[in-house]
């Protein structure tokens, strides 16, 4: 079920009210687990079986890792990792693999039918497999005791506010909170609801509004002016940010209403002045996952500069592949990896820290990130290159060719408003009752009047 749907609105109301009616934590866990199953099954019901199977395997693996020692301990970790990566590989990369080697198969054996799976990728698979793996790895490393209660562990993986698109949580953060009985706290509820509404604004008012123009630009890349295509590319940067961070705001807000604090996933990423800084502020839960479970075990920066660069490049390629089974994502990851690995860090001196220099670096960095997003958005490498070549092969013509000028400027104003609000007002808590009510009413009206409600899924659901 999408967060931007009436079904979710009613569901959220029922679950939250029910949650606070229960005075027993065990019952609350059962309620949240049942609600999370319902939430997940609203997409494709049968995929709950895959998720359920994975939960059983990882739960047992966690217990066995905690109980055993030596090689047996490692063997259980490997079982868990193989099960998770195996499911992910099967559903997400099977067709990609066979699509890639198809020409080779046809060359070796003409007329052979290449097997392709006709299945839908279970929604949010990459997210919950990574979250499950972080649990077994942390238990293996001895940083997290194995969870004995099956329902609590299942809820850790399935907790609906972060089930399908993160943040990819760590057991140390969530499990203790699931064990604690959360008393009703008005401030939590108010803060959570305010944040959810802000997420709705970002998704419905900005992301889905600019999405209409972005789609038009990408569908008419051959005929639009370079200026229009540049506008489309810049708007996509904000579409994906508002879409994904809007989703996270709703998820984090929904958890906050129930007194559960989830980790932050974004920290004004477009104000970064370098690619490495961008990755410390964009999809933080994924970046830190790769850092903790891939980059550092590979040696990190401890084995010399050359090895560090290789490790960084490898992690970014993997991150690209994680996003989608398409070479466009691999190239997107690779480009980020190359800049992170090979560009020298910004010098820390008085001149480079000045406002002017910082602004210049930020602007250049935003431009680079925007151009890289073209690979992320396009369905194929050919189309990405076509889009980029059309931008750089300056054709003249108005920047709004094919677009509706009021919509372009309206969206720019909304984006500026969003950036200012996130820069200068980070907290979602409003103490004054009247101010809070005004904020709520105004934002509801703005969301309703200016929002686009066309059942658009969140971009990151597909991963």
């Amino acid at each position: 079920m999408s967060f931007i749907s009436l079904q979710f609105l009613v569901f959220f109301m029922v679950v939250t009210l029910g949650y606070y009616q229960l005075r027993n934590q065990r019952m609350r866990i059962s309620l949240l687990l049942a609600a999370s199953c319902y939430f997940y099954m609203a997409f494709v019901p049968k995929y709950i079986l895959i998720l359920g199977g994975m939960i059983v395997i990882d739960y047992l693996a966690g217990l066995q890792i905690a109980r055993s020692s030596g090689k047996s301990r490692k063997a259980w970790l490997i079982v868990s990792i193989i099960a998770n990566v195996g499911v992910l590989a099967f559903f997400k990369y099977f067709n990609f693999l066979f699509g890639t080697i198809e020409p080779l198969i046809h060359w070796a054996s003409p007329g052979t039918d290449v097997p392709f799976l006709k299945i839908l990728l279970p929604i949010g698979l990459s997210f919950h497999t990574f979250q499950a793996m972080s649990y077994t790895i942390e238990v293996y490393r001895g940083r997290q005791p194995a969870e004995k209660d099956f329902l609590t562990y299942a809820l850790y993986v399935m907790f609906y506010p972060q089930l399908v698109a993160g943040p990819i949580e760590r057991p140390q953060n969530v499990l203790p909170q699931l064990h604690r009985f959360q008393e009703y706290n008005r401030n939590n509820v108010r803060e959570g609801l305010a944040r959810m509404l802000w997420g709705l604004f970002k998704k419905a008012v900005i992301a889905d509004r600019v999405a209409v123009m972005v789609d038009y630009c990408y569908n008419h890349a051959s005929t639009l002016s370079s200026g229009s295509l540049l506008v489309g590319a810049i708007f996509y940067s904000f579409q994906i940010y508002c879409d994904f961070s809007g989703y996270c705001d709703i998820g984090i807000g929904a958890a906050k209403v129930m007194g559960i604090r989830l980790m932050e996933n974004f920290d004004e990423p477009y104000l970064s002045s370098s690619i490495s800084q961008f990755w410390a502020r964009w999809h933080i839960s994924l970046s830190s996952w790769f850092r903790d479970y891939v980059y550092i075990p590979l040696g990190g920066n401890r084995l010399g500069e050359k090895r560090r660069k290789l490790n960084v490049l490898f992690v970014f390629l993997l991150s690209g592949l994680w996003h989608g089974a398409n070479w466009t994502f691999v190239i997107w990851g690779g480009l980020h990896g190359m800049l992170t690995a090979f560009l020298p860090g910004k010098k820390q001196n008085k001149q480079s820290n000045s406002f002017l220099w910082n602004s210049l670096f930020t602007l250049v960095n935003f431009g680079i990130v925007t151009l890289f997003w073209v690979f992320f958005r396009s369905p194929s490498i050919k189309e990405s290159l076509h889009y980029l070549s059309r931008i750089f092969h300056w054709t003249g013509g108005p920047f709004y060719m094919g677009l509706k000028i009021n919509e372009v400027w309206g969206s720019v104003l909304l984006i500026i408003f969003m950036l200012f609000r996130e820069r200068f007002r980070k907290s979602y808590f409003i103490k004054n009752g009247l101010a809070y009510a005004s904020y709520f009413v105004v934002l509801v009206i703005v969301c309703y009047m200016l929002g686009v409600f066309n059942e658009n899924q969140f971009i990151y659901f597909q991963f």
Partner: protein
Amino acid sequence: MRTNLSISNFNDVRKIVSVFFIFIGLALLLISNSDHLMEKIIAGRSALNNSFGIHQFPGEDLVSISYLDNVKRFQDKDEFIFNKPVDDTGSRNIDLYIYGDSYLMEIPDSAFSSINSYHYCRRSYQDMNYSLNPHKKNILIIEIAERFARVEFELQETMRHFKKKQPEVSSLRLSGPSVIYAKFPDLDIFSPDVNRNLEFNLYGYRFWDQVKFAKASLTYYLFKRAVGDAVVSDDGNRLFLKETMAENDRASSYYPFEQKEIQKMFFNLNATCAYYKADGFDEVYLSIIPNPVTILQPLHYNGLIPQLQQPDSLKCMHIIDMYDPFSKDPDPGRLFKTGDTHWSNNGIQLWLKTVNAELKKQNLQAVSKRNSSGYGLSNLKKDTANHQ
């Protein structure tokens, strides 16, 4: 003591309110998830003529669904005018059957040439059990709007809803598929329309209309766009149904298809045609009405109709082609209504002209056949043989 009492009362009230809203929420989810209940609710609410009724802008469905009642641009007064065909004299040897959709539902019998009787069955809304007159030339036209074609012809659905009136024993053959369906109930426990149903149950009342008009007008005047399932055309002069231009919808004129899919549709269409011919129809026609975007914004058209209308692949069916004359019309905009999914009077007249020319031709053939070999008798024999 008094304070404790009032706190306790306050908590009780809060609890009662919470339970009330939990109950309301669960009921809403359950009702909106049930297609059966929703059918009843929609039928009941449609009959209401007060604030709890359903919004309906007369004559123009896209204006209605996008709540653009206050925007005059998309409202036209175009109405169908049906005249008796000129020179429609002489014998009437044709019994015309149409299995079609809303595009044809308003056509009266009198608009057709050379017909003895006319029978119309509306797809998805009704079933028909026909009984053919062996002394007449029985002609079937399977008409379909382009946006439904891919889903309809993926299966051999037509035969399940439009079939010969038969005695109980022989009808078992046709009820076969239903028995199989009954054994394998649909595993999906959620209605795909749950959000639409919730919107209907929560906001689908006339007393909300002014708010919806305000949003629709604001969106239109600010961004030149429509809300909901309608899209403003590139030239800004008309509305299109969103699903007919979506990137990932099989109703869309822009959603590509594979040859495999086309081959499957050919197979099903040929099987459908063979079925009706074996059942006694003398001729079977296929008529696909193009989506308005297919004709008016053809830049990214997937080419479905020209692909489907290949005479080499559709061996037993005749085609009533609307794609070619529509796309070659010097002013194609005149063929469709500006605020509606359907065609205008000009569009339907073009279709009638083509159909009537065919009917006349078939009528003449029937006359000459009867004169030369006794048409009715041979058909009667064929019909009897089919039922033995």
